[in-house]
């Protein structure tokens, strides 16, 4: 009898946590369909006449599609670089059991972004790359590479070493061991790493704010424009936020099963 109650209580607990987490998101989505004046109304209006005005304003006053493309280019590009560098790096750390390179990467990730901004601004100005997508793609690699390394490390570690040793004895060169043996065995980790890297890069606005110009701005940086000195276009902002949140959400949804199993460290048995 008490087990059923524990069950119900844990469900209730989950529901409450979900409510707290989802409430702001729900509010954001609802507000995007409210007429601008009603968004900040107090007491908050739950019933309203839905309108697409905010979205129309968004698309007419800003080059939304362009910004979306920029975001996508930067996130995909930096994820790719993160994977290109991080996949072999994590394998090397796991294989050699030398961990300090991974720790250094983590420390770089945890350092405040503002630490890098000024030097980078100067560097990219000199190279005339301010406003180029490359400035953002390269700098976002600071975001994506540590994620790739730190997600993949436990996956590589969980592969029994004897499998790699067997491949060595079987005449396999190290790079081939990575490509033919290690990578196929850490696929769930690779999926998780890619998604996380993409999402983090998509949401990162600091670098985009400083290192891009009106041509190469990303979505999140552009959304800042709506927060003005005097008035803030709340409705449009909510609409922008809703649209910006969509791609990561859809991505995560698409690979949700892989994500959950991948996050609960995959134990690969030989």
């Amino acid at each position, binding site marked *: 009898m008490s087990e059923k109650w524990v069950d119900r209580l844990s469900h209730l607990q989950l529901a409450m946590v979900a409510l707290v987490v989802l409430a702001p998101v729900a509010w954001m989505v609802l507000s995007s369909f409210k007429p601008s004046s009603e968004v900040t109304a107090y007491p908050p209006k739950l019933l309203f006449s839905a309108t697409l005005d905010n979205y129309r304003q968004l698309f007419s006053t800003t080059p939304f599609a362009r910004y979306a493309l920029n975001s996508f280019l930067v996130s995909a590009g930096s994820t790719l670089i993160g994977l290109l560098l991080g996949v072999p790096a994590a394998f090397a750390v796991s294989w050699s059991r030398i961990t300090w390179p991974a720790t250094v990467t983590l420390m770089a990730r945890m350092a405040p972004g503002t630490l890098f901004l000024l030097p980078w601004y100067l560097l990219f100005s000199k190279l005339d790359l301010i406003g180029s997508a490359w400035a953002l793609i390269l700098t976002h690699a600071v975001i994506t590479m540590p994620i790739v390394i730190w997600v993949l490390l436990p996956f590589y570690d969980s592969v*029994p070493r*004897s*499998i790699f*040793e*067997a*491949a*060595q*004895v*079987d*005449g*396999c*060169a190290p790079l*081939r061991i990575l490509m*033919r*043996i290690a990578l*196929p*065995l850490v696929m769930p980790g690779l999926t998780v790493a890619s998604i996380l890297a993409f999402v983090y890069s998509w949401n990162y606005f600091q670098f985009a704010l400083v290192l891009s110009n009106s041509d190469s701005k990303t979505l999140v940086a552009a959304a800042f424009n709506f927060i003005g000195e005097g008035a803030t276009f709340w409705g449009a902002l909510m609409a922008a936020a809703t649209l910006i949140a969509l791609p990561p959400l859809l991505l995560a949804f698409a690979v949700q099963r892989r994500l959950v199993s991948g996050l609960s460290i995959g134990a*690969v*048995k*030989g």
Partner: protein
Amino acid sequence: MASISFDRVVKRFGDVTVVPELSLEIPDGEFIVFVGPSGCGKTTLLRMIAGLERIDAGTVRIGDEIVNEVPPARRNIAMVFQDYALYPHMSVRQNLSFGLENQKLPSAEIDRRVAQVAAMLQIEPYLDRRPKALSGGQRQRVAMGRAMVRQPRAFLFDEPLSNLDAKLRVDVRGEIKKLFHELRTTTVFVTHDQVEAMTMADRIVVLQKGVIQQVGTPAEVYNRPANLFVAGFIGTPTMNFIPLKRSGAQWRWGERLLELPQHADASTTGTGAVLGLRPEHWAVTPDAEQAFPMKVEITEPLGSDTFVFGEIEGQRIVARVGADVPVVPGDLLPLRADLERAHLFDTATGETLLRAASSRP
């Protein structure tokens, strides 16, 4: 096909010297078994041949080539791991062909070799299965097949039978012996099980703490152990060890004087020694005067023989008697010791002072 040799090889793990200067010659075509308790260095030595452990001093040769700096991929040896280490994401066929693909052999040759080995090991029905769909015994055969298909200079086995159940172990032991003796490729087999060593080896290397205790054929190692350790490690149940005290020119066990064969006295020094007598060198005797009476504690009837555990002169002894001998715990069993077959060991060094006189090489 190649010989393997260790020349004053040293291996350290941090501050611990696991192998202090070891030298060993393994001639081409020999099936040699490294045996010893856990931590004796046998697997470390095997991995040094494979190139999976660095060599801190000395040289390892495969054939005429010094392989200290040669990576495992280029040593042309094949290894069977204790946990089989099959590639989980590949089918059995792919597992078998992977090594050959690395060697860039033509695919017709690869297919031919895979088919041949699959037939030899009777794993044809499983060629398209993944390792996780196989039983332990089947995986083990695939692991062996992966080694055989490479036609290497030498085979290395790292305790491949440990994960099999007892009956399967006996069956596979025989299969390995037959298969690999036929191939006549140099084989180094590591095990902690002395029965496996005795049944499979051309020669056995008994190791303790990284030091070779004895190298010899199974018969040599069994009948003429070089020291106490080898005598106690080889043979099951373990040899009986009885501490003796010198009494003039003779030896005393408790109150009893022993008549050891003549040549025993000549080579002995010191006042103490250890007598070694295997369980099968005791016999039930009707002569109550000469007999050592054993206070029987446990009997283990195996069907063909019975092992009797008990006490003689306050010493724990195990003796092998015929299955037809009527004995139960609590009995006083009159036993005669065949002292012609006895071994004598120095108490201090453990070295053999006297080998059983009537043992044949």
